[in-house]
């Protein structure tokens, strides 16, 4: 016992260092895998409020740019409205079409904090559980996919963006239908990569990369980016596809949170599948 106490006394600084490092590293590695609580992230009430103040001060800087974006978006959507389409066949086109049912609902939100230089980048947005945000919902920007909801508090939420290592959004190449997962290498905020595309088919440069919608997070067909280049991976029959993101995550200010109204239905149905093992 005395020897043990002497040992403790001799190495107490190192032991204390190990203890504190243990706490910090456990925090780091568990949060990278799965968020445990909102209190230790920027979505908590105190830091969230402070970021809101900061956002209220700085949002005017980007006002003009945001207006430009919104105007472009409105123009794009306006062009698709039925009232602006020419009826070719006067008999068949009906405006009140009951065959469609709304599956995805978009809630607008503002980003109040963002980073893009880290290895794993998270955004904080100004809507939360009281506005119907849930963990795992999709987040869409103005030009492209942003990420998924990582953690939610009452009035705020954090977004795991495409600029994280394990974002794994199901993506596909629009023309050929080849699908894989989106990854990020942690260096360039403009470029990501698409894994799991087999190299027996040619991938055209600058073809569109869109969401596949298989997980029920995003509808199919939201733009992610364009194929910038393809490279063969040594020893595997796969392409390493570099994707140029459609969204500029360094500038983005406003996003939409996508709620899939039929997600539970899809999950319930898929839970009945026999175990693949």
């Amino acid at each position, binding site marked *: 016992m005395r020897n043990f106490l002497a040992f403790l006394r001799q190495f107490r600084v190192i032991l204390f260092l190990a203890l504190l*490092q243990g706490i910090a590293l456990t925090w780091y590695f568990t949060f990278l895998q799965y968020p445990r609580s909102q209190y230790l992230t920027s979505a908590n009430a105190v830091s969230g409020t402070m970021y809101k103040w900061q956002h209220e001060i700085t949002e005017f800087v980007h006002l003009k740019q945001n207006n430009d974006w919104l105007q472009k978006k409105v123009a794009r959507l306006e062009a698709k409205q039925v009232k602006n389409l020419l009826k070719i066949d006067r008999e068949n086109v009906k405006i009140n079409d009951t065959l469609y049912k709304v599956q995805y609902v978009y809630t607008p939100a503002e980003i109040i904090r963002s980073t893009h230089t880290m290895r794993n980048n998270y955004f904080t947005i100004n809507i939360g559980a009281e506005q119907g945000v849930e963990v795992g919902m999709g987040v869409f920007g103005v030009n492209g996919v942003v990420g998924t909801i990582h953690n939610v508090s009452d009035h705020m939420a954090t977004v795991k963006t495409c600029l994280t290592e394990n974002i794994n959004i199901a993506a596909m190449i629009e023309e050929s239908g080849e699908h894989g997962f989106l990854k990020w290498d942690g260096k360039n905020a403009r470029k990501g990569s698409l894994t799991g595309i087999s190299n027996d088919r040619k991938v055209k440069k600058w073809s569109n990369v869109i969401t596949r919608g298989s997980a029920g997070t995003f509808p199919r067909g939201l733009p992610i980016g364009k194929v910038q280049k393809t490279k063969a991976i040594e020893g595997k029959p796969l392409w390493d596809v570099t994707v140029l993101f459609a969204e500029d995550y360094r500038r983005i200010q406003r996003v939409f949170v996508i709620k899939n109204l039929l997600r539970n239905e899809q999950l319930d149905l898929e839970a009945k599948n026999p175990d693949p093992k």
Partner: protein
Amino acid sequence: MNTTILTHIIRLVLLFILQVFILNYLEVGYGIQMMIYPLFILLLPVELNVFYLMLIAFGFGGLIDIFSDTFGMHASAAVIFAYFRPIIFKLFAPRDGYDILMETNMFQMGFGWFLRTFGILILIHHLWFFLLMIFRVSEILYILQMTGLSAVLSFILCILFQQLFLRKPKKEA
């Protein structure tokens, strides 16, 4: 005594605001991230026990983590900084030891001393931080590049901070 504590608290708040609301948003490129908060740990009193030093560093780093969604990376790096501070201080101690009344800033201890101690400490701090962040041996060159470039910029920022906010000693004529 109370004024010393007050000075440290004001400095903590100031460095915290600078780090979280300004420096975290600056983009320089080449993977550079500027960090000014280690300066607070350097400027804590010399006679402070290393346990308290590490505890304060852990708390301060953790606070920055909570605000910048880095999940303990800053806390871990700050504790490493605090652990090495007494060791480096002993290594570069002035001939007649440290004066308890003196603060370990670059005006009172001299620029040469500040360059050596803080330079080494911030290199250790940044290296640990980027090692944790990337956590891959294959990208060691990238880690070293980020560490070196960021450390130089952080160091310059800390000099600027001291020039702006610390009281310079009166020159005796």
